[in-house]
């Protein structure tokens, strides 16, 4: 039972890293970006290809996955996303679905539709068990690693958001774009930077998650709903909301699939719908925000 909790937390942390970029960009630009999973897939494929074709070590691949996705995100933000910020949501949805379809077909064409496998380094493969009987806690080393990395990233993000100048500019832009621009904040640059970092984090999440979630060209479509759940349930005004939502989702999903495998994703979706009927703005909303 503790093992399930542990796996759920690892899964939730992973989902958080994957979705936090989406949460921030959605709160910032009010842009419904369904193509977020595509950036995660790019990160995953960068890692897989670098490791398989060039033998780059796993730990080196992770920052590269981050940089690659961030670069792609930055370029796309500047060229394609920016004109759409003030379009109706229908346009944004259509656009990002189109982008997702393109990403899926492109990955299929160049890399093939088979599931990619990551060769983890030896020291991440083992498993440690603590305790006895019902309370036994089995921790896969890789999952432990994921939790550690994601926790460090969360702390870093929180620090950047609350303590640095960029963070305060970002928060100001989220709260009120026009006033922020009037105060001399270059909102466009803040957007660009945030989008790039968000995409980079998704890429990193995709690289980390390739082993756990599985990586194939349908990745963006398969996990789109999960990212959106995190954002919709967690709200977009802070990063603690999405974090809690991601943990909740991760634990509910793992536990549901373990105890009642017959129902599959049913539990998660029903839970989401119930939460959204109860609190349409998300579980954790700050008063006074947009």
């Amino acid at each position: 039972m503790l093992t399930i909790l542990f796996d759920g937390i690892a899964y939730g942390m992973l989902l958080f890293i994957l979705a936090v970029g989406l949460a921030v960009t959605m709160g910032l630009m009010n842009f419904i970006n369904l193509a977020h999973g595509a950036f995660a897939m790019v990160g995953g494929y960068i890692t897989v290809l670098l490791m398989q074709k060039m033998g780059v070590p796993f730990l080196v691949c992770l920052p590269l996955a981050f940089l690659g996705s961030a670069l792609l995100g930055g370029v796309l933000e500047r060229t394609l996303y920016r004109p759409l910020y003030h379009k109706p949501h229908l346009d944004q949805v259509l656009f990002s679905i189109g982008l997702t379809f393109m990403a899926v077909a492109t990955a299929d064409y160049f890399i093939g539709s088979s599931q990619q496998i990551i060769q983890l380094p030896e020291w991440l493969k083992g498993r440690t068990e603590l305790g006895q009987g019902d309370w036994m806690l089995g921790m896969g080393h890789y999952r432990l690693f994921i939790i550690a990395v994601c926790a460090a990233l969360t702390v870093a993000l929180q620090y950047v958001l609350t303590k640095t100048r960029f963070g305060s500019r970002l928060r100001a832009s989220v709260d009120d774009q026009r006033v922020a621009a009037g105060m001399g904040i270059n909102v466009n640059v803040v957007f660009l930077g945030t989008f790039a970092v968000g995409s980079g984090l998704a890429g990193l999440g995709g690289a980390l998650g390739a082993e756990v979630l599985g990586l194939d060209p349908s990745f963006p479509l398969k996990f789109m709903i999960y990212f959106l759940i995190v954002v919709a349930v967690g709200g977009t005004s802070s990063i603690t909301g999405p974090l809690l939502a991601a943990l909740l989702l991760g634990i509910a999903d793992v536990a549901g699939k373990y105890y009642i495998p017959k129902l599959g994703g049913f539990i998660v979706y029903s839970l989401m719908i119930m939460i959204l009927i109860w609190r349409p703005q998300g579980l954790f909303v700050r008063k006074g925000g947009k």
Partner: protein
Amino acid sequence: MTNSPTNSQNLLLQSGRWKLWEYPLWLLALASPFVLSSHALIINEIAIVALFALSLDLILGYTGIVSLGHAAFFGMGAYSAALFAKLVMPDPLLGLAVGMAAAGLLGALCSATILRGTDLTRLMVTLGVGLILMELANKLDWLTGGADGLQGVIMGPLLGQFEFDLSGRTAAWYSITVLLLVFVVARRFVNSPFGATLKAIRDNRLRAMAIGIPVTSRLAVVYTVAAALAGAAGALLAQTTGFASLDVFEFHRSADVMLILVVGGVGWLYGGVVGAIVFKLMQDAISSITPQYWTFWIGLFLVVLVLVGRERLIRPWTWMRRGSMGSKS
């Protein structure tokens, strides 16, 4: 701009009147299965997809609800019609009614979920409903056949006279007739005062509420109607192909129907029909060249469509007439 009551009444009536070019158009459509009998199968598909897009238009184009889960109702109609034919009786018209009723019931239930919240919330909820139904159809394999689909659906002859044949001529004629009937009803529906209140809700919900439109009940009714019509489309598909599979609930289907509607034009009843024709022909052409990667071209098309601007790309003649009629959501 001040209109006297009779003037604005005329305006409303005018837009609902049948124009001269529409009669030959529908006659042509009804004749097409017999003229182009070798293409009857694709004509049938186009009619079904057009009906599906029309149902989405009621909620997206006329009421402004962005839904990514409309396939839920399509699939509900398909499965209930197929199950009805398999377990109860094979009469197609009764099956169609059952499919519509089942989907409408589901729509009435789900309408509670779309009343509150932002676009994002609604997007998520509709998507979630679609996924839940797909899971259900997948897991209840004793009833639905699970991932293998529901096989062995045998339809009786239409009206006791016309057998469904392999060339699909009866099927195409059947689907087009249903489409025509639904179209007539939907037209009456959107041009009624009721339809006008829907457009008011789309354009500004707060003001609509302020002038005394019962927003909640209007939304619930239109969502139910749209769901029932989507169910009719699904039922037609299941009946004419004699098969229902998990594919009817796929996310692709919801996204495609949105694309179809947008290609044809949102908030215009012919939009779904035009979009369906363009989309199906395009799909046929592209997938015969690259069967596996045709989603890439669909994706590219979507991206270009949005970047250039929906209104401008599709209906160039409307820039002049109505300056900024862009649909608001």
